[in-house]
Structures are given as C-alpha cells and as structure tokens.
C-alpha cells in the first residue's frame, strides 16, 4: 500500500505523515501519508465512513473540539507542524478555512457574515477597508451581482446555492491559503452545484482546495488530484485522470466502477 501513498506533487503545501486518528477506542484513520499540491484542487473520495471527512478536519484541527478524538502522526502546513506547541489554532484556521456540508450562514446580515472573520482577526483598520474585503470576497465567490443591493438583509434568506457561495465568500474573506470543503454540494440542486463547481475551478488559482465528495463525477470534474480512501486507509492518490482511467488498486477500480461504496 505504501507505494500508493508516496505520491508527491512538486509544490506540497499540506502534508500528512503517519497520521492515525482515533475516536475513543475506534481507529478511524490508519497511517495516512498524503501530500497536497498548492493551488490545485484535491478530491478525497471513498465510501461513507472511510475517514475522508475526518482527515479533512485534521487539516485545520477542527477535531480539537471533539473531546474523544485523538490525532497521532504529523501534519505540516508549508513545512510547519500544525500540532507544534507554538502554533495558535486560531491563526491556523485563518490560513486553512473551511466550507461545510450544509450551508451554515450566521443569522446575521450578508455583510456581517463576510465581515465576521476579518473583524475577529482585526484585519482591517477602517470601514472602507472592510467594505472592500466584503465586496472583493463576494465578487470572488460570484455572488456580488446577486446580493450587492441587499447586503443588509439576513444571509439565511438566500437560496441554498447562494448560501453556500456566501459561506465560501466568508471563508475567503480571511485570506486563507487552503480551503477545506466537506461535501459542499451535497445539499444543493444540480444547477447550484454546477455554479459552485465553476467557482471552485476559479478559486484554485489563488487557493489550495481540498474537497471531500461523494460524487465521483464531481471529483472528476473539479479536481486535479484524487485520493481514494477505504475503511480508514488511503488506498491510492494521484492525478485525477490516472485514478479514474487507470487505477492501480483493485479497490479503487471497484469503487469507481460502482462495485463497492
């Protein structure tokens, strides 16, 4: 299995070495070695319960809030160990943003949703600067034209697809390096999904995106690299085209042809 794990892109930004994750006594991930290329889209695929979301949540230490969760091994962001004692989880999460499965805008105005991150991190000195970040983030998320005249309206009043793009705008407002997306389209209809996928394609120029998805078509459409997980193991990782056309492992073959999963 090791030969499948040592796929090393040239410009690695996030790297996990020998990562084991436990929930209480139950081990969810086994010895994960994964290198994620900068400014690319990496898809994590695999059947339910294979640990792909768990791994995603390791990258910004969202698992910290689950008391029974334990992460062993090392994860580095740009060469720095994210579990090092001098690492501030607050700064880590600013650099590694997250978009969740279900759109989760705050029950605040559209403006305040975007401004939330920059405000808590003290990123702006003036209202004008903040306005600029809000506009830029919304534009980058392809939402500006739809909401520019109702920034003071609640974010929860938008449609599902718009809400998810609002959440993406909110994540990019704090200027992260990496954006983790945990099945960002699973609650959206096909048209909204297509819009978000286009957006992901544009975002990869500036950000590194790691996306967990249940849809193999989605992985094939949006990602450049794909990692296939099965029962807590990283089975295969490589260029998306290779994974889908010439998988090396039988399990990958079975999954992408619909025989397991």
């Amino acid at each position, binding site marked *: 299995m090791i030969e499948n794990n040592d796929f090393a892109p040239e410009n690695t930004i996030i790297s996990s070495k020998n990562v084991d994750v436990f929930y209480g006594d139950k081990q969810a991930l086994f010895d994960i070695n994964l290198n994620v290329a900068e400014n690319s889209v990496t898809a994590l695929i695999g059947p339910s319960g294979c640990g792909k979301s768990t791994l995603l949540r390791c990258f910004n230490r*969202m698992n910290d809030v689950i008391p029974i969760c334990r992460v062993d091994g090392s994860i580095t962001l740009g060469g720095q160990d994210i579990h090092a004692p001098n690492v501030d989880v607050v*700064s880590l999460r*600013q650099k590694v943003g997250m978009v969740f499965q279900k759109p*989760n*805008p*705050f029950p605040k105005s559209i403006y305040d949703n975007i401004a939330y991150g920059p405000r808590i991190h003290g990123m702006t000195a003036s209202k004008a600067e903040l306005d600029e970040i809000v506009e830029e983030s919304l534009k980058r998320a392809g939402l500006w034209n739809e909401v520019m005249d109702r920034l003071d309206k609640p974010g929860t009043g938008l449609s599902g697809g718009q809400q998810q793009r609002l959440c993406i705008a909110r994540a990019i407002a704090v200027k992260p390096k990496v954006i983790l997306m945990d099945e960002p389209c699973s609650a959206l209809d096909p048209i909204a999904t297509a819009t978000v996928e286009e957006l992901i394609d544009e975002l990869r120029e500036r950000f590194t995106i790691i996306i967990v998805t249940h849809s193999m078509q989605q992985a094939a459409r949006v990602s450049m690299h794909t990692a296939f997980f099965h029962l807590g193991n990283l089975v295969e990782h490589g260029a998306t085209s290779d994974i889908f056309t010439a998988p090396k492992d039988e399990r990958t073959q079975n999954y992408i042809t619909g025989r397991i999963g």
Partner: protein
Amino acid sequence: MQQCNLQTINITRNAVGRKTREMLVIALLLACSLVAVLTTAGIITSLAFEAFRFFQEVSLFDFLFGLEWSPQTALRSDQVGSSGSFGAIPLITGTLLISAIAMAVATPLGLLSAIYLAEYASNPARAIIKPLLELLAGIPTVVYGFFAALVIAPMLRNTGETFGFVISSESALAAGLTMGVMIIPLVSSLSDDVINAVPQTLRDASYGLGATQAETIKQVIFPAAIPGIAGSLLLATSRAIGETMIVVMAAGLAANLTANPFEAVTTVTVQIATLLTGDQEFDSAKTLSAFALGLLLFIITLCLNVVSLKIVDRYKEQYD
C-alpha cells in the same frame, strides 16, 4: 379469468369489544385532559364573579389607580373612620420592585451559568453542577422564606448599620435577593436548553473561521439565542411576580409606595394571602378585594406567559 371467492375475505366488524374499548380509552383520556381545562375555567369564573362583586362596592378606577392600600372596612355600618381604601398601585409597585431585584440577581447568574454549562463545562463537571443547580428549584419556597426572614434580612440590616444605612428588617431587598436565588435554576435551565438548540453548524462555521470560544459565544451563539433567552427571562419574571411564600415571610405587610429597596413593601400575593387567611366574611369589600387582586395578578402573569411562550416557539421554529 378466475374470480376469487369473496365470501372468504371478511372485513366486517366482528368483535364489538375492541371498538368499545377504543371509545372508552378515548373518553378516559379526554376526561383527564378536561380536568385541567375545567379547573382553570372554574378558577377564572370564581375570580371574575367575586371581583365583580368587589367592583360594585369599589370603583375599578380607584382600584387600578388608587395610591393607598388599607383594606379596613367597617364591622358595623355606624362605625366611624374605618372606610378602607383599595388602591392597588402600592401593591403593584411593591411586586415589581421585588421582582426587579430578583431578576437583577437571577438574570446574570442564571445566564452566565447557562453559558458555562452549555459551552465550557466538561461532561463530568456538567454532570455534577447541573443537578446541584436544579436542586435549588426543589427547595420549598417556605424554606427560602424563612431563610430570607431569619438570615438574609438581619444580615442586610446589620451590614446597613455598619455603613450608616437604615435597612428595615422586612425589606424588599431581602425578599428580592432570595427570590432571585430561587429563580436562578429556572433561568439557567431554560437558557441552557436555548443555547444548546443553537445548531452545531454555526459553532463549526465560527471555529472554522478561526474564532475563539469566547468570540463564538459572544458574536454567534448569544445573538442566535437571544429570543429564546428573552422568553425564558419573561417566564422567570412571571414566576417572580406570582411568588408568595418568600414575600409573605420576608417582605412585610406595610403597603408603602416606594422605590427604595431598603424599605418594607408588600406585594399583591402577600395581600391576597393575608386577606384570605383566618375567618373572613365573604361579603365585605375587604375580603372581596382579594379576588380583584387575584384577577389582576392572573391577567398580568397570563400576558407574560403568552408573550414569552410565543417568543420561545418562534425561536424554535427558526432552527427546525
């Protein structure tokens, strides 16, 4: 085409017993729920009737806006100087003063302990603290009452003396403080529910953006929970207004119209309790005034409850 024998499919009602039993069960359940409804209706009717008799002797205007309360009535018609006055304002202000003190104690303590329990406490800590806090709600109010009268009130009076204040031994402060402690579990347990009802996805969103726990609580969880918290505070207020035992024992009988918490005041509930304890004639304005007070109290707390339940319900819908 083959036809099946229709005679073999029996869908007629065979046993009468099952149907009858079903009806009996429904009747029993309905009767039980009617008991509560009818009792409420009975209470309101009796209150309204006696209050109506009272308002035949004392005008509604004098009752609602009168500034003096001394419910003495003549025993004999030729008695002099003992026509009572039935202005409810001093009682209402007394009630509000004590309730306000109680809420001033219970709101911060209850709310902050709810935030601690819901967001910070580890599971073992929560398992110990929550039942202990709720134990406060299980203490009989009469116990709170003598605690207020025998411990808190003398303590306040002595402290006051040290600093040169005059605090009467039956002060609004003593009653209000004790009542506040009594209400803490009500506020904390309702607010705890409300805070827990804020979806985890909102916490995730905030933590995912790099917010600390305190920032998340202050800027996301608390604003999202405010309507529910407001509802629970109103419910607690209504409980404070209706509370009787503590004020009977600690607040006194003198109907002073004052906003000074160091003085003795009396409340609507205390007056009702005093007017109706012991042997009373039920045709004098003095006794009947208790019903008018009861009706007034009932209307106030009913309004508060309706408003607060509405707020809490609307809040719940928002996240379902």
